[in-house]
């Protein structure tokens, strides 16, 4: 079965420091990959997605991610974080044919940005 793994459940970081949130997925065949963010008491908001083409994907709020087929990774990065980036981040994948398909999520990583 397909799966998404987020190795870090919590990542503390100081403001203005760089951050990388790790995500690995099970198979590169016909995969679409997504990063969502969830702020307290809000829904999941799409940060960025990889469908095809350039392996470096830029998203909202200064985040980017790189699709690495050989390492089956899709790590999320930001060069300088702000207090407002404190949230939970979810990596998700979609596999297979069909017009839509369901998302398979990782367990999430809580990013805590400290002043």
């Amino acid at each position, binding site marked *: 079965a397909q799966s998404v793994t987020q190795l870090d459940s919590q990542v503390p970081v100081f403001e203005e420091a760089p951050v990388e949130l790790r995500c690995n997925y099970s198979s590169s065949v016909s995969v*679409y990959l997504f990063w969502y963010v969830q702020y307290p008491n*809000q829904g*999941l908001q799409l940060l960025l997605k990889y469908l095809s083409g350039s392996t470096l994907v830029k998203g909202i709020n200064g985040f980017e991610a790189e699709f690495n087929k050989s390492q089956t990774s899709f790590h999320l990065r930001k060069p300088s974080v702000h207090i407002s980036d404190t949230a939970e981040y979810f990596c998700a994948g979609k596999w297979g044919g069909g017009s839509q398909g*369901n998302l398979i*999520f990782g*367990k999430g990583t809580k990013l805590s940005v400290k002043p």
Partner: protein
Amino acid sequence: EPEVTQTPSHQVTQMGQEVILRCVPISNHLYFYWYRQILGQKVEFLVSFYNNEISEKSEIFDDQFSVERPDGSNFTLKIRSTKLEDSAMYFCASSGPSGGFRGDTQYFGPGTRLTVL
């Protein structure tokens, strides 16, 4: 910006009772989904719905669950006889204003926290 809304934000019920969770998807979307997240676990897919019928469902979505689009705006998840293990955050999502493309973004609501006592 259009958004998915869900009501109630928190529902407390007794084991064995029926609950209905409500969602209003983005108005021009055609694909609707329910996911859930048990505390400390992954967000899990339950069901997808298109053209007034279920298009996919997971093993979790057994006979205790049903979905309905009773009118042009609401999308509901019913749990017929709740169990303790149904306690979770339930997220509704919608996508695809037309056609349907696997890369379409799914837009999520804020969730309903269901607590079964």
